[in-house]
């Protein structure tokens, strides 16, 4: 990457944050904001203690517990290990003077929901968190990526990270989105197209009229799942939609700096003739509502499609992998996707647990009842999302339809808390990973949009929102 010539959004943020080069040739990148949760941080704080190192800049870090927390009866965490982890976070943050939103704080929620919600996430920033879905924050034109616990410790101690620049990839999606197709379908389609290792070593910039036409919530859903495409981070150019979203939020730049910040943010979009290592152009008219059938996020198919046949695989490895997935999922080749019967519905997660997602679900299930054989759960991404939904009467619509209305947290996206699938149970899920055992041992996950999950809750089968009236 040269300092001269046209630059991508990634190049601009990168060069702005370069502290310098170490003698071993690696780059030190400055980190503006560090988000911390209970699962990947205890060993990092322990490491600091052992080496007797302080936190370099405590006010640049914000902590919250989300992975382990129960979504009902949260006064008492029953699992003793979960309880210790949450208490350890409270203790560590207090000891080092780090801001912590505790479980009784209305601002508590999934770390990637609350960052944007509080205005912590801003264009041009570097943001890290010991969580792979940190890519979510790229929706604001911030370079945001997940790190391991050793790196969490490194950031706490130095406010920098050791990195070498990623390659640039641009995925442009153009045209008006067809009826029934939204950001979740777009990103599932992209992952299906490039594969779960398609973005490895790259930062993906999403561009084109379909992307820029999305709300901030929609953009976050796209960037959130960049990691499922193997990318280190996702990025979308900041624009007026971004600025409008940020303005007035608690941690947003105040009046005294607002104009200066916007001026800087406006300089961030990629230069017209910037160079990308990889370019993909997609016409949005080719995209249907998408569903996963297998155990990798790349196992996607149109909701109008069928379960694939292993014999159609191009390589022996792929064939074996399809066979393994089908066995785990309990599916037969050729089955129509809409013939797949469900046991559970999970709406929530850092992918689709925002107010806009809840509003869509409410509009679909209003005055209807969920199928008698399904259990449906809706988990707001944060305490504030929950509050807003309740103010809008969304909770009542959902409860009337038969949904369970829960407290904020990661919930069944990863089943570290009491919300889990039982072996063999089949779930329509708005989350981001359909890995074996992800939502509970033996549990079977079909990823999809909140609209499809809502329609599927009513019919009890995976359903096409376009057929649903």
């Amino acid at each position, binding site marked *: 990457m040269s300092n001269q010539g046209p630059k991508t959004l990634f190049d601009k943020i990168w060069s702005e944050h370069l*502290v310098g080069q*170490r003698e*071993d040739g690696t780059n*030190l990148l*400055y980190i*503006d904001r560090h988000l911390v949760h209970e699962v*990947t941080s205890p*060993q990092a704080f*322990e490491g600091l203690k052992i*080496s007797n*190192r302080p936190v370099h*800049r405590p006010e640049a870090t914000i902590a919250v517990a989300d992975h*382990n927390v129960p979504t009902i009866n949260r006064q008492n965490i029953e*699992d003793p*290990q*979960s309880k*210790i*982890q949450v208490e*350890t976070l409270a203790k560590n943050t207090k000891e080092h003077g780090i801001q912590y939103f505790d479980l009784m704080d209305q601002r508590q929620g999934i770390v990637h929901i609350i960052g944007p919600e509080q205005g912590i996430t801003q264009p041009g*920033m570097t943001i890290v968190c010991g969580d*792979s879905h940190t890519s979510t924050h790229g929706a604001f034109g911030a370079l945001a990526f*997940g*790190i*391991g*616990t*050793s*790196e969490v*410790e*490194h950031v706490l*101690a*130095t*406010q*920098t990270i*050791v990195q*070498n620049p990623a390659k640039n990839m641009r995925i442009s999606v153009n045209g008006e989105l067809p009826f029934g197709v939204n950001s979740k379908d777009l990103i599932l389609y992209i992952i299906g197209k490039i594969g*779960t*290792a398609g973005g*490895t*070593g790259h930062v993906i910039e999403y561009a084109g009229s379909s992307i820029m036409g999305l709300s901030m919530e929609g953009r976050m859903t796209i960037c959130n799942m960049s*990691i499922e495409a*193997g990318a280190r981070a996702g990025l979308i150019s900041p624009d007026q939609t971004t600025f409008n979203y940020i303005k007035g939020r608690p*941690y947003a*730049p*105040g009046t005294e*700096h607002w104009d*200066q910040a916007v001026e*800087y943010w406006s300089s961030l979009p990629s230069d017209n003739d910037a160079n990308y290592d990889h370019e993909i152009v997609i016409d949005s008219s080719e995209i249907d509502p998408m569903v996963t059938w297998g155990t990798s996020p790349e196992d996607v198919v149109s909701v109008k499609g069928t379960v694939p046949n292993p014999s159609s695989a191009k390589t022996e*490895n*792929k064939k*074996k*992998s399809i066979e393994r997935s089908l066995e785990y999922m309990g599916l037969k080749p050729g089955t129509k996707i809409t013939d797949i019967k469900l046991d559970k519905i999970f709406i929530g997660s850092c992918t689709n647990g925002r107010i806009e997602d809840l509003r869509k679900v409410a509009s679909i299930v209003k005055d209807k009842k969920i199928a008698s054989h399904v259990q449906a759960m809706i988990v707001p991404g944060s305490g504030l999302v929950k509050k807003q939904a309740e103010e809008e009467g969304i909770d009542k619509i959902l409860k009337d339809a038969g949904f369970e209305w829960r407290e904020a947290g990661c919930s069944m996206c*990863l*089943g*570290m808390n009491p919300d889990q699938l039982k072996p063999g149970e089949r779930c329509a899920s708005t989350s981001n*990973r359909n*890995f*074996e*055992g*992800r939502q509970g*041992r033996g549990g079977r996950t079909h990823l999809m949009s909140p609209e499809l999950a809502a329609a599927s809750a009513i019919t009890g089968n995976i359903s096409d929102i376009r057929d649903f009236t």
Partner: protein
Amino acid sequence: MDKFHSLKGIAAPLPIVNIDTDMIIPKQFLKTIKRTGLGVSLFYEMRYDNDGNLIKDFVLNTSPYDQSKILVAGDNFGCGSSREHAPWSLKDFGIRSVISTSFADIFYNNCFQNGILPIVVSPENLDQLMTAAKNQIEFTIDLPEQVIKAGNHLIKFEIEEFRKERLLQGLDDIGITLGYKDKINAYEEDKKNKKPWLFKNN
């Protein structure tokens, strides 16, 4: 951090693509606040049945693979979450090197933080090494020479110089970076003037 120089031992074949970090160490084991003790839970759902008994035909449950120091696995190893519990559990089991055709970025990074050497080889070489592993041929991995020896196979591999040095010397990354503290402080002072909103906390 533990040093890594060379390694000799049996390699376990795991010919599955997209082995994700949930498979390597499932969520219920992430509740620990320690780095150690995870080896017994490595690949838990493939290794144990619903009652917690060892599944006899899973490779790491059979001799001599239960003593493996090396894993040979399918493409895109370590995809999924950022949990460093994945390399912690591998290391605690005794695995010090993983060979595949590609690795997910975060997992790859995490390995080096823990003295584990992930090695990328070509699909042809992976096939050869997978067969050698199945035939229980002893592997030798020589980091200074950047070569894997297994029977008749002699396979060179690439590694970035700084990563190699860090493994060979077992360097403390934070310690190195703290040597640049003046630069970090200077960077912050500069940005406080140029982008003051980044240093305001409400």
